[in-house]
């Protein structure tokens, strides 16, 4: 009796999952569809399949510039966050006595708070210091935002390593730097790589902080937002589809890397 009611619940949840999946993907599929199919005032012209908009994309200089800026911002902010997250995680693990809770709170805060708070606080901070807005300020904003992700992954990996690893290294006369370079780094590398890809996708799509810090610089999401106010062309749908494919590829890489780890924890 109760087994069948459980099966009933599972079937209902399955239908719900299918329906929600359709709703979640509808925006994406429709956008991708419009990039290859002509939409006119009278409706959708299914015969008008064409990849022409993908070609036109490469002639739009403002979009190419925005893509380049976004890639630069993401690469810089992820690199900064990697260095900082390793330093913080090592500090917390080795010297954690002073201020561990404080550091963790500060690291997680920009990730947990609404992005608008991070954005406007950095905006006012930079304005007070007389620093003009641009690519560098976006990089800082993104760095503090993605730091939490990298820190979490690096710290988890660091804590999973046996203490005997460091002890053996120290007993053999290695300095801390040598231990870091030859013992820890090979162990941390894959966690850092996973975190870096994850952080990259977050930074690549980040909009709500960038809006406050961009000044004259334009990242891709900001460019898209500006274009949406005047209306979209199929060209944008083409771009968006490419961006989606790119981020899906990154997400799949992350999930393939994360899965075995999760199983190991069991």
């Amino acid at each position, binding site marked *: 009796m*109760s*087994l069948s009611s*459980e099966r009933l*619940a*599972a079937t*209902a*949840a399955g239908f*719900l*999952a299918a329906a*929600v*999946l359709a709703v*979640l993907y*509808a*925006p*994406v599929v*429709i*956008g991708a569809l419009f990039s290859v199919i002509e939409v006119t005032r009278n409706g959708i012209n299914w015969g008008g399949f064409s990849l022409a908009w993908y070609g036109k994309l490469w002639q739009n200089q403002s979009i190419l510039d925005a893509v380049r800026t976004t890639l630069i911002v993401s690469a810089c902010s992820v690199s900064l966050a990697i260095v*900082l997250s390793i*330093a*913080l995680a090592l*500090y917390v693990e080795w*010297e954690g*006595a*002073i*201020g561990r809770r404080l*550091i963790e709170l*500060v*690291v997680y*805060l920009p990730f*947990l*708070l*609404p*992005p*608008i*708070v*991070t954005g*406007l*606080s950095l905006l*006012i*901070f930079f304005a*007070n210091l007389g620093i003009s807005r641009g690519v560098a300020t976006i990089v800082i904003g993104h*760095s*503090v935002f993605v730091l939490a992700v990298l820190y979490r992954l690096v710290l988890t990996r660091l804590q999973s390593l046996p203490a005997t690893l460091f002890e053996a290294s120290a007993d053999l006369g290695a300095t801390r730097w040598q231990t870091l370079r030859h013992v820890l780094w090979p162990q941390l590398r894959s966690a850092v790589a996973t975190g870096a890809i994850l952080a990259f996708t977050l930074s690549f*799509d980040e*909009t*709500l902080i960038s*809006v406050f810090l961009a000044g004259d610089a334009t990242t891709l*999401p900001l460019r*898209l*937002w500006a274009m*949406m106010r005047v209306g979209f062309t199929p060209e944008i749908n083409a771009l*968006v589809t490419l961006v*989606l494919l790119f*981020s*899906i590829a*990154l*997400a*799949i890489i992350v*999930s393939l890397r994360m899965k075995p780890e*999760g199983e190991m924890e069991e």
Partner: protein
Amino acid sequence: MNSLPARLAVFALVAAGPLLFVVAPIGSFLVMSFARVEGHQIINDMTLDNYVAFFGNWVYLKTFLLTLWLCAEVTLIGIVLGYPIAWFIWRRRARTRYLLLLLFVLPLFMSYIVKIYTMRSILGLNGFLNQILVGSGILSAPSLVFLYNQGSILITMAVIFLPFVILPIFLSLERIPRNLVQASADLGAGAGTTFRHVVLPLSLPGTIAGGLFAFVLALGDFITPQMVGGPSGFTIGRVIWSQFGLAYNWPFGAAMGAVLFLFALAVIVVAGSIASRQRV
């Protein structure tokens, strides 16, 4: 490395980045909230005017309260839809489980701006929703009710933030040892009893975390209201954003930001303490 000054020096070195770019900016925006604008000059004479203007003006206060209500609705929809889905994924065999999870989490990695835009085109006058409803005869003519109001903000946010709710719930379900469920069944508990007394309590921390994500994300969002909310769909985030754009009143924007900041902080702390108490 063991003397106190040396350890303090290491701490200062490591903590410099976060302190400089997280704590100092929050401090400077809180200070800004006590300033005022005169002409194009920002003068800081530690006035409470901005807070008086916010709490004394029903229009702003109402927007804030309506935003909180909106966030609560987004959170509720997220949990009501997200929990059964996370549970469904969790019950699959290992191979389909991760594939399903990936499918539900992938939308997180898709452009946020684009999702809002396509939601707008789905809900609009010539959008998919109207075409389907008119085509199937439910509506006689395309309706405007789906776009440019509070309801369209709610629908869009619910769609965009749902994966943020599913993931933590799934992760907390995944942490439940399978033999615990088995033991409960062996002791004669039915599926419903096991769910109520074993699965549900143990997955509560993840549920709270997921709800928290949805709530906080909805709280600060200003692009969704601007894109699908139309002239009537104002949230506190959109009002704050306008102070840094057209309205150009940074101190007032900072004051409203401070209210938002303190409220979000309180929600995070309360949710965190409930979740950690459950974990015991």
